[in-house]
């Protein structure tokens, strides 16, 4: 069975969805991601959906599920690269993706995750939060 590759990118995991997802593939991705977050102690998950021509409630539920499970494992999910036409359609469909952060592209998504890791370190007192400059 096909599986969607999961890459490690710094403290985060990167998933690029390139194919039209069907049920089994979505379920396999949820399982693989959960295992990989646990194994790598990743603090963030970036899901690149720039190749997706539509997001329906099936994919929406998958993204919500991944975000919920990741959160329990102390990793934050950022969905990146959503096409404008998809974003417009999602609103009308009624999908809020409330538990999911979004960013324009992988780079900005990575910044969101790094900011969070930094803020946590400050909270623990490992770092002070004065800017370097």
């Amino acid at each position, binding site marked *: 069975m096909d599986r969607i590759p999961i890459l490690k990118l710094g403290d985060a995991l990167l998933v690029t969805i390139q194919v039209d997802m069907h049920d089994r593939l979505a379920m396999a991705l949820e399982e693989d991601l959960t295992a990989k977050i646990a194994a790598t102690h990743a603090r963030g998950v970036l899901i690149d959906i720039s190749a997706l021509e*539509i997001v*329906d*409630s099936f994919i929406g539920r998958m993204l919500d599920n991944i975000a919920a499970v990741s959160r329990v494992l102390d990793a934050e999910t950022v969905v990146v690269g959503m096409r404008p*036409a*998809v974003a*417009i*359609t999602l609103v*009308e*469909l*009624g999908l809020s993706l409330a538990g999911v952060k979004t960013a324009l592209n992988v780079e900005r998504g990575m910044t969101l995750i790094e900011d969070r890791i930094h803020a946590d370190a400050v909270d623990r007192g490992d770092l002070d939060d004065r800017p370097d400059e």
Partner: protein
Amino acid sequence: MLTRSIGEISMTVLTSNTIEIRSGDDVVRVRQEVRSRAVESGFSLVDQTKIVTAASEIARNTLDYGEGGTLLIERLEEVGRRGVRLTFEDQGPGISDIERALTDGYTSGGGLGLGLGGAKRLANEFHIQSQPGKGTRVTIIRWK
């Protein structure tokens, strides 16, 4: 029930084709076919995305709840406008309470409960007919 809606006298059906919905792969094919027909009808990218998303929702319902069925895709022309009509039909268990099924958040199968309500919002016209024990027919039209 399952009678065709009337009042379409001045409407021309330019092309029509039927797709069987029996598996998840068929749902993928539905999305591709609906996209192609929308492009042929001159739909903008946003309008294409809306009708393909609505089609994906209803096709999945046909498969998951209706025990599979068919989709009839028609390209329409009326005075001054073009559109795509999608008619999904199944001989599954039907829907006893259509109002409830259309309510956002209602699901009998662990979904998000947004498919029917969402498809209605994404279409310009939406009709649903269903009879418990006989089946369900959902028709949507999106005009360019």
